[in-house]
């Protein structure tokens, strides 16, 4: 390798600025800076007037010892994340991937497109649909269905709010796992299926001994990734139940948001958000294990700038 001359080095730097510069600036301003700002705000007494007057560790202390609401919120979060993850984001996603790959390709694609609908529609529209489905009046979808069997109207929003948010989020969450698992199942060499069939395996045995071992990595990737996104996303809960009734469906991330933007306790909200930031970084590092680092870091082969 030659030592680069000074004009070559200038060119190299110009290329760096030209190609990578815009991305670096945006990421630094809106991704890295917010993390630092969040840490800084967490140790101030910033309130509704948006003017910090001094540094304090009060917020962190309050978070660790003084917030009586927090225990309940954490329990709600755990139930919500685990239930949605197990039932829909991995469980039902796997069922959808298995069934749609087992039928003729075009029919499978149709059903997958149906299950992608919720993800592709804007969140407000999706929440609007749920608003009708669970409407406590006799005109709501579920109540019309119940009326078919002579059952009285049911008020989901007040009587089964947790089920409601789990199902509403699960319908969206199932599609990501479905897509990744479908392509993973497609990537299994066909001769393995033929071999298993020749050996006398039935449909379920094929699933158990051919498909499941082959999709182990994608499945664990989805589990971690979706656990993380369930933990931090509150958009649909906010729109559908608004965390209610009372605090019954207020998950941690929604609690953080409400503390800051509804109660005006920005500093306390920032301190609470630190918890999510720490979990987020930890989970992101965990996700590394699932990435194929060698192909990611493959070295470039042309040295000319």
């Amino acid at each position: 390798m030659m030592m680069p001359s000074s004009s070559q080095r200038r060119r190299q730097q110009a290329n760096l600025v030209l190609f990578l510069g815009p991305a670096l600036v945006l990421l630094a301003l809106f991704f890295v800076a917010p993390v630092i700002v969040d840490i800084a705000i967490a140790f101030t007494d910033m309130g509704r007037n948006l003017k910090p007057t001094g540094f304090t560790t009060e917020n962190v202390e309050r978070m660790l010892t003084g917030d009586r609401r927090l225990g309940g919120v954490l329990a709600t979060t755990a139930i919500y994340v685990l239930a949605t993850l197990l039932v829909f984001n991995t469980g039902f996603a796997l069922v959808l991937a298995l069934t749609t790959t087992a039928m003729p390709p075009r029919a499978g694609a149709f059903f997958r497109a149906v299950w992608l609908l919720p993800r592709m529609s804007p969140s407000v529209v999706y929440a609007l649909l749920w608003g009708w489905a669970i409407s406590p009046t006799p005109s709501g979808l579920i109540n019309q269905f119940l009326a078919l069997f002579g059952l009285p109207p049911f008020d989901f929003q007040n009587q089964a709010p947790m089920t409601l948010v789990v199902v509403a989020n699960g319908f969206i969450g199932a599609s990501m796992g479905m897509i990744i698992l479908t392509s993973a199942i497609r990537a299994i060499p066909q001769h393995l299926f033929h071999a298993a069939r020749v050996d006398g395996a039935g449909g379920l045995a094929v699933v158990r001994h051919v498909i499941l071992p082959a999709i182990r990595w994608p499945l664990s990737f989805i589990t971690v990734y979706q656990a993380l996104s369930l933990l931090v996303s509150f958009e649909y809960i906010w729109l559908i139940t608004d965390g209610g009734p009372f605090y019954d469906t207020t998950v941690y991330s929604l609690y953080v948001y409400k503390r800051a933007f509804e109660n005006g306790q920005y500093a306390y909200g920032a301190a609470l958000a630190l918890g999510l930031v720490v979990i987020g970084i930890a989970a992101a590092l965990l996700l590394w294990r699932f990435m194929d680092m060698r192909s990611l870091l493959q070295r470039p082969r042309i040295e000319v700038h």
Partner: protein
Amino acid sequence: MADVALPAAAAPADHWAAMAARSRRRRQWTTIFLYGFLAVASLPVIVPYLWLFTLAFSARGGTDTAVLWRALLVLGPALLAFAMLGHSIDEPRRLRHALLVLLLVTVAALAVVIGPQLHLANWRFLWNPDFSDALKTGPTGVGSQFPNVWVAFGNSLALALAVTAIVVTVSTLAGYYLSRFAFPGRAGFLKSLLVLHAFPAMTLIIPIFFLMHWAGLLDSILGVVLVVCTLELPFAIFIMKGFFDAVPWDIEMSAMTDGASRRQAFLHVVLPQVKFGMLAIGIFAFLRGWEDYVFVRTLLIDKQNWVMSLYLFYVAEDVMGVDYGIVTAVGVLYVLPALVLYTFTQKYLTQMTVGGIKG
């Protein structure tokens, strides 16, 4: 080996035929079971969307859903017939004809069953922005002071297009650099980008609010554009890097042997190779900008800055449960561009592998 096969060959032919028939029947039953299961499981997804579309064109100030059920009575059998035709006819020409007939029958049946109920009155907000007559003006609600719907639609479009343009440009440049250039700290940069990709940006909304406040970008669409763009970037850069990685080195080498500079080779030779990647991230970016709710709700205040998500949210809040007609019409106006875009580009989107997971 041959003498092992002998007893099988000696078995009576009708025995084999019976086994084959049994296995075919079992396969058929499995397929029917799968269809049935998926159809029933998908109903809770399909019916609400059908509700949205039928009500927007048929509701008359109430919450009546008779039109929806009648439409479903027609569309259900039509879908079933569609699936069965696809299975039973193999020849493409005959299949096309049969499907055309089915389509005509379905449309005719719909026209008879729900045609008389359809009307456009729910869409009056399109040409008459002051549609307050339809909205109850509550003591606490935003009341009837809605901005013109076209202002919100235009804002949404501007937001989504700006996000698309910035994401595609920035991530294409960065993806190319990361794929093709060696520079000090490349491995470290890629690794931290991977962390950012998995890192949940929603947790940063409080500090982002302050940054916008200090930068004077609060209550400005530009601010939302920059935030949404940046949060999309790690994902988009990885996708683009993957597409660039798949372009053979040779075409770049030969372009440069022919006297092109590195930048010329990028623009004229490599870029055309990754246009589907750019299309895919462009569509994702557009949908992301179009559907955003949390950031616009937090960072935008003035009514003239409302986007469609806020418009629909406040209309729904005002009249929900009383008059679904206008709410569903606004919903259709909002969701339709996203659905149309998704339907027509689906084949590019689903081809994209979510790169780099170990196999």
